[in-house]
């Protein structure tokens, strides 16, 4: 990574706007970088080189014609293949959607393009965003740029790896239980899951609709803030999108002293890798040195978050994924003359991979007659208790800090045979989705040579405080400046 591919999104937009460099040159440098580096990483499922160059030339032509530069002028962006773009394939990492071309573009992508960003292509992911390692992609695993024998995390593993490896300065991911924050942590980059309702889900392929949220992956908090400014905002095409004012996040990044940082020590007492824990303690010390006041907070019900999440999320997924029936789009199997039931069954058997089937079975089970009250309804009540934990904690502090992942990047294949072990790695990220609050992961050093992530959580719609604390941390530390040896 050097030259134009080492620049931040903020710096690219500034230089393109001042005509110091053209959007086309920036795009070409990143496409070259993908051609050179992605063979060993496999971050991309589809590189849209022609489309990207055409988009970059349009931006350059607009600037030549004297138009005002948009906020992300010429900034290349990689898009997780869970977001629709009208003239590109959407696979969601699944055979079910192999060859599918969606009829419209996701609002999040449309907003970025309207702001001058250039889409480089679609990135690899766990099938239908179900997974924590990107190994559940039906097409190929993605490798961690810091250690090619290890996973990049997931499910937005392709986006995180692309940003870490300098193939894109910023990327889009989606986060249902940690799928932006955990791969950001494992790849040593920044990931923001906004408040539920902040970013439109229109054009985001649904996994668990009450938990899914789109957000940015970047190499600095400042770049994530610039992306968030463009992404957030009400969209009439998503009934759950919030009519809330969006602050100019990047402009309010200064300060952070005097804020109260809550640490749920009891929640962190067991099961955290020693190296991750010492990186986390050092990060807490750095926040205190930066002027933050540390507070001990208790989240008594979050120990139930994994159980709650894997009931709620699979229940919603079993319903959402009923749409893949071989009728309107995607794969149809069963052969000519097959009955309707047989066509459904064979389409879904051939189209879905093992993890997706496992979750559909679990989700259908917890919703089925005789088990609904004991599992689904009870999990929804546990969700209320978890949300209340956060409401109480945020009466005493402004942000809550935890490690993002209890372990650093694990080896490819290490956890694939044991789904429960894979699920348990989401312990620190799922509570934010259940409560609907925003979360930020940022690099905080290394554990055994692998990136460690610091997670910050805030009150609903208070991304500004989250980004301010994160930026203040990056102003006094240099962990976010470390790059993988590629």
């Amino acid at each position: 990574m050097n030259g134009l591919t080492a620049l931040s999104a903020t710096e690219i937009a500034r230089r393109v706007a001042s005509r110091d460099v053209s959007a086309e040159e920036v795009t070409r440098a990143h496409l070259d970088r993908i051609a050179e580096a992605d063979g060993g990483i496999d971050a991309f499922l589809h590189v849209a080189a022609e489309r990207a160059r055409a988009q970059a030339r349009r931006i350059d032509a607009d600037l030549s014609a004297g138009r005002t530069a948009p906020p992300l002028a010429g900034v290349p962006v990689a898009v997780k293949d869970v977001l629709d773009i009208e003239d590109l394939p959407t696979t969601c990492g699944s055979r079910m959607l192999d060859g599918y071309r969606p009829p419209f573009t996701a609002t999040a992508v449309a907003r970025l393009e309207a702001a001058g960003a250039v889409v480089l292509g679609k990135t690899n992911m766990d099938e239908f965003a179900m997974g924590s390692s990107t190994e559940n992609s039906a097409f190929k695993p993605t490798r961690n740029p810091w250690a090619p024998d290890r996973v990049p995390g997931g499910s937005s593993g392709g986006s995180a790896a692309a940003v870490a490896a300098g193939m894109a300065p910023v990327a889009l991911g989606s986060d249902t239980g940690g799928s932006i924050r955990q791969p950001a942590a494992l790849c040593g980059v920044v990931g923001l899951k906004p408040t539920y309702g902040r970013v439109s889900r229109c054009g985001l392929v649904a996994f668990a609709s009450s938990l899914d949220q789109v957000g940015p992956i970047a190499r600095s908090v400042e770049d994530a803030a610039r992306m968030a400014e463009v992404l957030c905002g009400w969209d009439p095409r998503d009934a759950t999108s919030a009519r809330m004012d969006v602050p100019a996040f990047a402009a309010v990044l200064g300060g952070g002293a005097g804020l109260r940082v809550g640490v749920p020590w009891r929640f962190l007492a067991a099961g955290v890798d020693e190296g991750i824990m010492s990186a986390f303690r050092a990060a807490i010390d750095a926040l205190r040195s930066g002027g933050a006041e540390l507070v001990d907070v208790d989240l008594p019900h979050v120990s139930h978050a994994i159980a709650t999440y894997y009931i709620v999320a699979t229940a919603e997924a079993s319903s959402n994924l009923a749409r893949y029936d071989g009728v309107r789009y995607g794969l149809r199997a069963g052969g000519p003359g097959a009955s309707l039931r047989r066509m459904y069954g064979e389409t879904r058997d051939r189209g879905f991979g093992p993890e997706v089937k496992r979750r559909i079975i679990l989700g259908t089970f917890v919703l089925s007659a005789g088990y609904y009250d004991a599992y689904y309804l009870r999990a929804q009540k546990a969700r209320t208790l978890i949300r209340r934990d956060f409401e109480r904690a945020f009466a005493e502090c402004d942000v809550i800090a935890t490690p993002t992942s209890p372990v650093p990047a694990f080896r490819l294949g290490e956890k694939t045979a044991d789904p429960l072990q894979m699920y348990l790695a989401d312990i620190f990220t799922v509570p934010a989705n259940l409560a609907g609050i925003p979360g930020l992961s940022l690099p905080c050093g290394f554990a055994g040579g692998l990136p460690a992530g610091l997670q910050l959580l805030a009150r609903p719609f208070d991304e500004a405080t989250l980004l301010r604390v994160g930026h203040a941390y990056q102003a006094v530390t240099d962990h976010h400046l470390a790059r993988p040896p590629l």
Partner: protein
Amino acid sequence: MARVTVDTVDHVAQLANLSLTPEERATFARQLDEVLAYAESIQALDTRDVEPMSHAVTAEVMRDDVPAPELPREKALAAAPDADSGLFRVPRVIGG
């Protein structure tokens, strides 16, 4: 506590319109039994007088019901595995 057997998986797979191989049925039964045994912890929670939470949206989500242009028919049908005369075609359902 509910135990997941191969029969449970069979029943649920049928509800979910999933055809599974015998190996998948056995593996899923074992793995889902483990996951549900873990999830058993929520049975111990005191949830008396606790409202279930179905989503995190607190804002008004209703809108006026106003007709507006939507996806044109040919675009909606473009990705269909089988379409005919402006309609999705499915295997015969009645009288097959």
